Structures are given as structure tokens and as C-alpha cells.
């Protein structure tokens, strides 16, 4: 088996001097006992990325007196009160989910879903005067690709060397717990993602639209190559990969060969594990792309034992959230698809009796503007995130919900003259959100400090929404 743990990658990174120097604490494995404890329980973490910048202000809507502020800011794009499924928070009062998201409401009511309010990219706590002043702000705010990257890396800048994802830090910890499994315990069904990038380990990238197939020619697999030849074709294919991986080759040549080798190894291994866990009893809608991705996630979670994985990390992605136009027409479809996918997926996890060991959470490029552009919303900053699963201390809002008003709004990232931008300054940093979830997966404080250097700028490094 070839390198699920990519030693070469680490060696190269060291040579390139882009790995932080080992800070004694983190690199020397702490006490064996602490490691054993953090590895003791099986756990899976699932990132559901809403690509394009989800309008979470229409997913979770304020009630009571704040509803009027919200409606005045949003104008015709506001969710009508008749389309709100009401829930309440012990401290903050009445809120509601969009009526197309009944699954979020039920999970909230069951205290298995928490709303993490007004979260976003931040280098340090930032007020409106900070925003207008000289405080360091996340780089290239309001651009899709940069803000996706900052969400997924927890970094404040997109350039430079802080490019590893905080999911990658979780994946490193999973590797440590799992031992040397044939396949890396980190999976993306949403394509390439910065979230799972790590200095130490790779992740497996699968397309949920098609079955995971083994590669013909390897391991004597082919219905078409005559047997007498097949047994010799495979070793030749292997030789060509090994030649590509030779240390004298260029970085790009080796990277290609490593990719091909990993593809063969991973598909071989996953094919048999998945065949044993079809979860065909769960009716996933095959025209719902997110549902298909989550179905595959559920099957891989069900395959923990076959794959020898105590810990796993997953990244799935749903597109279409960049609702600059026709928001009123597009949102119901987006919400329906999202709700359906979450619903069947959580049912599957419940059915496996694994609810308390699987936590799923949402993330997005940014929140959208509270203000309207006529029939849509533009790129904002802070937005709500949603965490659900049996281990979530749910049924509540984490953090203060923002000011929704279009005048005198201290949360608005507007101009000095007080004009309303509708872009809301986050109160909770991605770093805090990430740290809370990573710690539940067993990542040590020392490793968190490495993965999320800006975490130290925030006093509350655990938001408390995960049960121990």
C-alpha cells in the first residue's frame, strides 16, 4: 500500500521551510494517557459546506421585536412571518426556521441542533470602530474563493504559508488514533478543499454521483483482458507508478504518480467496504446531489470497522447559494434540497445507532447582505452556522444574534458616515467554532494552537455546544 500518510509530502514541506518549527509540546506526543483518552471513542466529523455564500439570515430568522428590524432591512426578501417555524432560546427569546427547513426545526426541538450565531472570518475580536480603523481584517473580504479558504483554514490571509485546513488537523489526529490504515480517514465528496489540507496526511476525494469503482488492470481485475495477460499487466502498471514516484523525478511528476497510486489503493479498499454497507434501506433521493454525498458519508461511517477507522473526517458541498438574483424563487428549492438531504442523512445515522458519535456542521463562504439588491442579496460577512448530532448540546443559540436594523447598526460593516452596508461583522470567529469541533474530535490544545494561530486572540476557545 502506498502512503496514506504522505511522508514524502512532509519531507518536502520541511525542505521548503513552510512547516512551523516543532514547538516541542505539540510534536513530542503528550502523555500517552491523554492520547489514549482522546482516541478512545469512535467519532466522525462532517463539514457541510454551502458554497457561494448561504443566506443564513433567511434560514434562521429573528422573532419578536427584532423581526421588524429584519423585515425593514430585507424588504421584499424577508421571510414572511407565516413562513417561519417558531423556536425559542432560553436567553434570547423567539426565533424561527424557514418553513422549508422543518428538519432543522425538529433537530433543534430535540435539542440535537445548535445555532451558532453570526460566525465568520476574524483575526481578532472586531467592532465597527475596529473595522473602520486599523485593526487587521481578514484578507480580501467578500470574495468567494478567499473567504472559502479563510473559513477552511482558519487563517487571516490567503497568501503565505498558513494554508492548512483545520479539518486537516483533525485528520492528522485521526491518523494518529487509527494507526496506519490503508486509506486515509479523511474524505471529500465536494472536490478539492482547503479544509482537509494537512502537512502530514492526504484525503480521499470521491464523486458521489458515480459508484466507487476499482481500477481495471490492477489486482487482476478486468472482464476484458485475457487472464494470461492480465496477471502481467497489473505489475507493469504498478511499475510505471513506482517509476513516476522515484525520488529523482520532479515534484509535479511525483505528485501525479502519487495520485494515481492512491487512487488505485483507495478505490480497491473502499469498494469492498462499501459493498458491505450499501445502506440501501435508506431512500436517498438520487437527484439530490447533497443527499448523494451524505449517503456516501453514511456508508463510510457504517464502514468504520472494515476500514479500521476509529476517527473520520468528511467534507461535503452543496452549491447554488450565491443568490444575487431571483432569491425568492431560488431559496425554496435550495432549502428543500438541503432539508431533504439532512433529513435522510440524520435518519441513516440514527438508524446506525451512531448519532452520538457523529457531529455535522455547516459552513459557508460568508453570510449575505441584510440589504437587498432588488431581487437578491450580495456578499456579506458574518452568518449563522448550524451544528447537529447526538453529541450537540442543542436547542439553543450560541452567541448573541446580530442587530438587524438598517440604521444605527453597530454590527454593520458600513462606511464611517453611518450608511448601511448590510454586511454584518461576525461576533464569533471561525477559529472558535473550529476549536470547539476539533476538540470534540480529540485534537489537543497544542495542536489546535498550531492549526489555528489566531485562536489565541479570543478568550473563549470553546463555545460549549458539544457535550463531552
Amino acid at each position, binding site marked *: 500500500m502506498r502512503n496514506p500518510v504522505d511522508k514524502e509530502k512532509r519531507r*518536502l514541506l520541511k525542505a521548503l521551510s513552510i512547516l512551523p518549527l516543532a514547538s516541542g509540546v505539540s510534536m513530542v506526543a503528550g502523555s500517552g494517557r491523554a492520547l489514549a483518552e482522546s482516541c478512545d471513542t469512535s467519532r466522525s466529523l462532517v463539514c457541510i459546506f454551502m*458554497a457561494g455564500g448561504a443566506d443564513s439570515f433567511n434560514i434562521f430568522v429573528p422573532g419578536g421585536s427584532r423581526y421588524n428590524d429584519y423585515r425593514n432591512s430585507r424588504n421584499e426578501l424577508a421571510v414572511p412571518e407565516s413562513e417561519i417555524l417558531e423556536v425559542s432560546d432560553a436567553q434570547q427569546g423567539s426565533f424561527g426556521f424557514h418553513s422549508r427547513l422543518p428538519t432543522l426545526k425538529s433537530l433543534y426541538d430535540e435539542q440535537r441542533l445548535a445555532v451558532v450565531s453570526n460566525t465568520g472570518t476574524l483575526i481578532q475580536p472586531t467592532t465597527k470602530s475596529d473595522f473602520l480603523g486599523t485593526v487587521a481584517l481578514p484578507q480580501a473580504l467578500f470574495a468567494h474563493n478567499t473567504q472559502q479558504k479563510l473559513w477552511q483554514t482558519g487563517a487571516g490571509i490567503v497568501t503565505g504559508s498558513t494554508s492548512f485546513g483545520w479539518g486537516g488537523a483533525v485528520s492528522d489526529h485521526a491518523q494518529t488514533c487509527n494507526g496506519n490504515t490503508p486509506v486515509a480517514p479523511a474524505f471529500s465528496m465536494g472536490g*478539492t478543499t482547503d479544509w482537509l489540507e494537512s502537512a502530514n496526511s492526504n484525503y480521499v*476525494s470521491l464523486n458521489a454521483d458515480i459508484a466507487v469503482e476499482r481500477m481495471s488492470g490492477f489486482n487482476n481485475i478486468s472482464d476484458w483482458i485475457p487472464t494470461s495477460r492480465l496477471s502481467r499487466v497489473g505489475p507493469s502498471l504498478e511499475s510505471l507508478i513506482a517509476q513516476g514516484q522515484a525520488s529523482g523525478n520532479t515534484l509535479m511528476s511525483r505528485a501525479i504518480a502519487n495520485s494515481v497510486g492512491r487512487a488505485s489503493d483507495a478505490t480497491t479498499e473502499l469498494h469492498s467496504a462499501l459493498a458491505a454497507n450499501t445502506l440501501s434501506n435508506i431512500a436517498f433521493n438520487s437527484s439530490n446531489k447533497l443527499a448523494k454525498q451524505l449517503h456516501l458519508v453514511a456508508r463510510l461511517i457504517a464502514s468504520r470497522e472494515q476500514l479500521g477507522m476509529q476517527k473520520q473526517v468528511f467534507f461535503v458541498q452543496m452549491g447554488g447559494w450565491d443568490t444575487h438574483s431571483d432569491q425568492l424563487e431560488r431559496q425554496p428549492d435550495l432549502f428543500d434540497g438541503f432539508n431533504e438531504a439532512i433529513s435522510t442523512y440524520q435518519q441513516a445515522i440514527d438508524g446506525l445507532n451512531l448519532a452520538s458519535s457523529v457531529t455535522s456542521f455547516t459552513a459557508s463562504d460568508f453570510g449575505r447582505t441584510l440589504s437587498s439588491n432588488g431581487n437578491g442579496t450580495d456578499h456579506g460577512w458574518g452568518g449563522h452556522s448550524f451544528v447537529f448530532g447526538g453529541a450537540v448540546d442543542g436547542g439553543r443559540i450560541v452567541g448573541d444574534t446580530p442587530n438587524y436594523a438598517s440604521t444605527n447598526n453597530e454590527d454593520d460593516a458600513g462606511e464611517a458616515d453611518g450608511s448601511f452596508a448590510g454586511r454584518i461583522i461576525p461576533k464569533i470567529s471561525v477559529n472558535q467554532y473550529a476549536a470547539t469541533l476539533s476538540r470534540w474530535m480529540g485534537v489537543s490544545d497544542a495542536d489546535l494552537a498550531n492549526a489555528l494561530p489566531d485562536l489565541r486572540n479570543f478568550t473563549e476557545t470553546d463555545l460549549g455546544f458539544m457535550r463531552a
Partner: protein
Amino acid sequence: MMKIFSSLSLPTIVLASLLVQACGDTGVVIDQVGASGGSGGGGGLGGEQPTENTNPDGSTGGTPSTTSVSNLNADDVEASRFLAQATFGATPRTIAELNNAGSFADWIDNQMALPVSLTEPYTRANSNNSSTVERHEIWWNNTLDQPDQLRQRVAFALSQLFVTSDQDFLLANNQYGMSNYYDTLSINAFGNYRELLEAVTLHPIMGVYLSMVRNEQADLVNNIRPDENYAREVLQLFSLGLFQLNNRGEALPLNNPVPAYTQTQVEEFARVFTGWNFSAVPSWETNNLGFEGTFTQPMIPVEEFHDTGSKNLLNGAVAPAGLSTRQDMEFALDNIFQHNNVGVLISRHFIQQLVTSNPSGEYIERMTAVFNDNGGGVRGDLGALVKAVLLDPEAREGHLTNPDFGKIKEPVVRLAHVWRALDAVPGTESLGVHNTSDFTLHRIDEMSSQAVMSSPSVFNFFKPDSTVVTGGVLKSPELEIMTESNLASTHNNYHDQIYRFTTRSDIASNNDNTRVTLVNLEPLVELATDPDSLLDWYNLIFFAGGMPDDMRQTLFDYMNTLPSDDAGRYAKVQDSLFMVLTAPQIHLQR
């Protein structure tokens, strides 16, 4: 069958070289991939490679029966390299054509003068407008069969700059418009960037995709502001990029580069791009878009929805108050066009798409100069830029000195090349269109994460700055989509192509799919009489002379285990071609 067979003839110069006994002297300096050691300071260990004539046992000057040696004509090799950059890959025929063209520059001039192969007529004739497959069919037929290869390759590169996508629901349902948009890129491929930028800006397909259509002036009372979508992306993706660039393509200082524009400027441009409606509809508000031309004719201005105030644009320029919708748009596009970043960004895009992922600063600087002035005082001459990109000394000789020169071939280009090189013909019951065994061509993004104008977002299939190693320096955009699933699917597609779908396959008795494209292996079966000749053919066509020696030896040794009768030679071709098309080595274009 015979017609197909005879149409794939080797250029005489290749045949001549293939007939030369491949013993000892190679006559050509074959660049060794990776022989110069690792890159980026990371892989400098163990750079020893067998020299060309060294046998596995360390002796030199072996015999043909144990050592395979390449023997290619230097002109053919360079022609093949050039065609990998300028077309959908070299074939024996195009190598011969290029060698007969006088010079590469002459060939480029000839190519640019060829009639444009369009997609819209076919799509109109065959699609009901919401069926996407026909637009992909004609794109593949043009790509495989039409002579205007340079234009089609450049149009494909442009479609990855000015991105629109079938994955948008409304666009998917307007394939006449999508075809028209693609043809706009083809027609303007060698025209002027400024004109193309305006054609793209006003195209209703872009108007829908980035929601400029029906964008209105602000309504401050109701907190309604203009839509920032097109304003932001035209700056970030189509012209400037995020950061100020010098002419070498560097954003400095590295850890804190200067933004190319501010959020406030995005808002100002958003105000510029107000007041445009579909041309063919009766009103601003109507939801009925079912009129001829709605998605194919340029959008038209409607003054009452335009923001007529002044706007602060780039570099201190102010669009004065009172300009008409069209005047404002033209002022703004001129303003963008004059920004220094544009030439850098567009040059780098073409270089990365056609030649190398990691151009030197000097290469970018030379191309930026051409973009800024084509020699005749014209800024934005795309034809001049394409020509310069392909003829630049770095494009022609960079592989000789820089081990990191080159790029990963895009999956669509790779498949197009294989089909062209192997004279693919549509399956007997495919009605003249091409198909793979599991995917109709409009769905090959499920196999490879790439299909023409079908990317997941306006950020294309991959990002131009993604690196080989996270946080590293060397870029490899296409590596992003070499995922486990994609590699497995494309691998199995090539397996099926070679073992199930050739012109020799007995499709009927196999009860196999009669709609799948067939490749013709017969010319290769002839060459397989001398495995070294077959390997030279692979080396020339698929590696432009750069097939690594150890790979060649592996294929040679494998073929020596098979008999040399017709069935044995067919087996040699099948198995060696399968290895070639699925090996890691073939992904690299040097």
C-alpha cells in the same frame, strides 16, 4: 473500416525515422523528465537516472532485444511539442502539416485565417434548447474533426476565463444561447480583448449567469442597492485579479499584497452596470423570456433603470454624471482595460492553459508587453498574444533547462488527443456523435470533473494559483481535479476504449454498446512488428519525445512476452497502449 485504416497514415518523415535501425545512437537529445533532480529545493536527493544507453545491469550499448532505444526526428519532436500546446494534441497528420508549413509562425497565421467552426447552427438544428447534450456533441465533433484547431483550443481556454456553465439551471435550459456564447469566444479568439470583454459583458448568457441583466439603480428608501455580482467578478476573474501585480505577475509584498480594488470600487462598478435588459422582451419586468434572441442577442440599455450619478473607478478615474447606460459601460470597460494588471492576468491565463503552469517572470513580462502593444500600437490584441505565447523562447525551449517546465494536461484535452491520434470514429448506431462507454459527452464531468462550459462555478474547474504541495510555490492547477474518483473513472474509460471499443472489436457478438466511439489500432498493429517502432510512435505522439527511458523499457519488456503473429501484435498494442494512456507519465505536458 478500410477507409478509417488508410486515413491514419504516418507522415513520411516519421516513417523514415521509424525505419532507421534503432540501435545505439539516438540522434536526438531527449529531455529526461526528472533527470535533473527535484524541484523547489525539496527533491534534490537521489537524482541518479539510468543514462540513455545503460542496460538495467549497468552495461552500456545493449542490443535491441534487451534495451529499447528511442529514435525520433528532432523536427517531428518539436512539432509534436508545439501541437500539444497549440491544438488538441499532435497526430501524425498534423505533425506532417506543421513540418510542411514553413515555420510555426506561418502555421499560426494559416490557422488564424481558417473559417470558424461554430456550434450554434448544430445546436439549433438538433436540440430543443433545454437539452444540453447537442452542444457538447458539436463541440467534440469540431474539436476532433475541424481544421481550426488553434482557434478551438484558444476558445476552450477563453471559456475557462470568461466562465459560464450548464450547471446554472437557467443556462442549462438555454443551449442556443450557450452555443452562441461559445461561438462569441471562438469568433473573438484572435480579436481584441476590449471588444471581447464588451461582447461577454453584454451577452445575455453572462447577464444571467452573473446577474447583470435587469440590475437597477439604488432605491435608498428601501435599502435596495445595485447587484454587485458582475462588478466583482469582472474585476476579480476577467481582468485584474485580487491584487496589484507587477509585469512579472508578482503580487507584492508576498505576505501582504496590495488589493487591486476596494469594496467601495466594486459598489461603484455595480452602479455602472445598471439598466440592461434582454433585447427581445417587451418589458423590464416580464417573466416571459420565450422570444427569439432573448439569450443570443446582446442586452440592450433601458435608461430609466440606470444609475446616472458619477462613479469613482480605478486609478482615480471618474465616470461623470449623466452618461447613458451604454456610455457608462464603455467608460468602465475602458477604465478596466487600461489597468496594468489586465495584460499580466490574461497573459498568465494563456500561458498556463497552453504551455506551462509555472512561467518565469520574464516570460510573463514579455507577454504583458505584447498585450500592452502588439508592435503596431494596439493594446489587447489576442491574436498577437497567442502567437507570442506559443513562439516565445520559453515555450519552445523551456523544457531543456527547467525541470519544472510544463503542465498537467486537462482531462478533456487528453481524451480529445487520444481520439484524434487514434482516428476515432463514432459507434455504428451513434448517429455520428461521439460517446464514451459510460458517459455521454455532456456528462463527462462526472468522469473527470471537466466538460466544456460546465464548471461548478465561475471559478472554473480549477484555480490558477493552486499548488502541487499545500503552501508550496510550484503551481499545478489541473492537479486539483485528479481526484481518486476521477482517476479511477478515466482509467476505466481508457480500459474500455482499448479492450471493448476498437474498430476490431466484435461489438455485435459481445452484445456491446453500438453507440460508443471506436478507436483504430490497426496502424499500430503494423508498427508492433518492431516494438521499438511502436514505442517511438507513442513517444512522438503522446510524449513529444519525452517518454522516460524506464517507462519505455517496461513497455518493451512487456511486449517481448507476447508472440508476434497478428493476434500477438494486437495484444501488444492493446496492453502497451492501455499502460501508456493510464500511466502517471502521460499526464504531464512538457
